[in-house]
């Protein structure tokens, strides 16, 4: 009996997930994907495509901050959720070779990074944050910058915070 379209799709999907998981787990082990669980920046550079960022980080102003300080949330659960998600997908893409060139930070991770700036630098930006500008309780829903033309935020102008990396895009890794 021929398979229905739905059945065929399900099988394909199951195979894909299985394969993806397999590859992901494989790479996670072989390619030291577990380095995602450490805080050592050198561990990120285990993947050669991270090595430019690593080199640029060493030239930059933020040796005091590790990759994870900027690229994972600053709370225990969030940190490992993001690490697991990024670790899995990055391993998967790395193994399949399907990733953009040049690398581009994803919207979700950009938000994580914007929050990280504030985690360390909140006092210095108190004056320019919307607590003052809007006197409202706003989540640190962060500005669109660089990657999108939408200006610093959406909605009425009191609604959101400044994007830090709009001006400070070189802080993490100095490249020109």
């Amino acid at each position, binding site marked *: 009996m021929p398979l229905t379209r739905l059945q065929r799709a399900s099988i394909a999907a199951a195979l894909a997930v299985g394969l993806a998981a397999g590859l992901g787990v494989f790479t996670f082990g072989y390619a030291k994907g577990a380095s995602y669980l450490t805080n050592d920046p050198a561990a990120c550079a285990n993947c050669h495509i991270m090595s430019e960022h690593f080199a640029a980080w060493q030239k930059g102003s933020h040796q*005091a901050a590790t990759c994870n300080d900027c690229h994972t949330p600053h709370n225990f659960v969030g940190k490992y959720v993001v690490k697991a998600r990024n670790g899995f997908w990055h391993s998967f893409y790395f193994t399949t070779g399907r990733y953009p060139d040049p690398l581009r930070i994803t919207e979700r991770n950009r938000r994580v990074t914007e929050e990280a700036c*504030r*985690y*360390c630098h*909140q*006092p*210095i*930006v*108190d*004056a*320019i*944050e*919307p*607590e*003052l*500008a*809007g*006197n409202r309780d706003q989540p640190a829903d962060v*500005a669109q*910058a660089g990657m999108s*033309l*939408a*200006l*610093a*935020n*959406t*909605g*009425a*102008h*009191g*609604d*959101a915070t*400044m994007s830090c990396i*709009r*001006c*400070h*895009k*070189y802080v993490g890794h*100095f490249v*020109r």
Partner: protein
Amino acid sequence: ANIMERRQEARNPFYRVVTLTDTTTDPAIWGKNFPQQYDAYLRTVDQVRTRYGGSEALPRTPTNADPRSIVAQSRLEEDPRLRDFWSGYAFSQDFREERGHAYMLSDQEFTQRQQFAQQPGTCLNCHASMYATYMRLGGGDLTRGFEAVNKMPYQEARQHVTHSVSCVDCHNPETMALRITRPAFMEGIRAVKATQGVPNFDVNRDATRQEMRTFVCGQCHVEYYFKGPEKRLTYPWSKGLTADSILAYYDVDGHNDWKHAISGAQVLKAQHPEFEMYSQGVHARSGVACADCHMPYQRVGAMKISEHHVRSPLLSIDRSCQTCHKFPEDELRARVETIQDRTFELRNIALDAVLELTRNIGAAAASDSTSPRLADARKAQRYSQFLVDFVEAENSMGFHAPQEAARVLGHAIDIARKGQNSLHGVVGAAPVALPGVGATRSRPASSGAGAAERK
């Protein structure tokens, strides 16, 4: 210091010493809550010159009619051609380099342009703290107050104001959020957004925070005219923000600023179209705001604040430019000056072209005031004069949009010299028309085989 120790909860960094309201126009009172911003605001009295910007402090002997003891350099003395350029208009009497916000009220009150013609209260819109005045005179209705002031003679309106642009004109006193307080801008920007497919734009409701960091300046640093007998301040933007669109607007509207004394042409004066020119540049496209460059963040103690000493960014290149451009200060200054020198070079040949045309028309009219050729030549002067003035009056000498400024000047040169041709009956001369009308502005898509592949 350990970064963990420095980490604190977000807090309001300012002490609210006094309560501020919509009627607090005196910046000194706001300064009690925000002393750093206030101190910087006061420093707009400083005068330092850059190659094309800033201003020079020239001492003068105060008189009863004009009590100022220091003025900025005269642009008419720097370039005497400008006297002929504006011949017959107040600007040919007195036109100075603009300087810091602290001077805006007195420079307007005491310019000799005031002697030349009776000015309306409208002038004050951009030269004083108006918000409370508009609200008071409008009985709580901002627009009605605005209309009331427009209709007064200048001297009467002047009695209703005290300060240069002040905190209350840019900030909501409760939240300190930016706000737009000028009805002319509310109307103008609504028209612009409509041309971009955004209907019913209410700037105080719909603008993003980053847009506001430009729009507060766009309330004044723009081209304008006084519309109708009510002298309503109007921004001519309903066809768009480019020099060409604004000229096309005036052509339909029929507005003239004055009749040129040398040529008899009905001409227009362009004035400080910073917002319009900036909007054509790559910085605007990249979401960079006026405040990013002209009010860069400045570290003060443990926090950073917006530098309220609004001035030429060439006097603060490190903070205005270098966070985004990692090049040495001298290199960045050289980039700006290269752009400005190119603009200045074209501006000079364009100015010469318009002046030659102007004198040719004057001579032709003197020998035969009924010549049918005069009309076209005067139209050419009207168009080209406005286009040159658009770049001349724009205060960045082309930096805000380098290629666009050059494009506008290219059209000005073409139209002025075409006017000379048509005045002299050159055979086959192209007709005088608005810039770009009839010209091909983009390469047509291919019709050939490869077109389908176009990516």
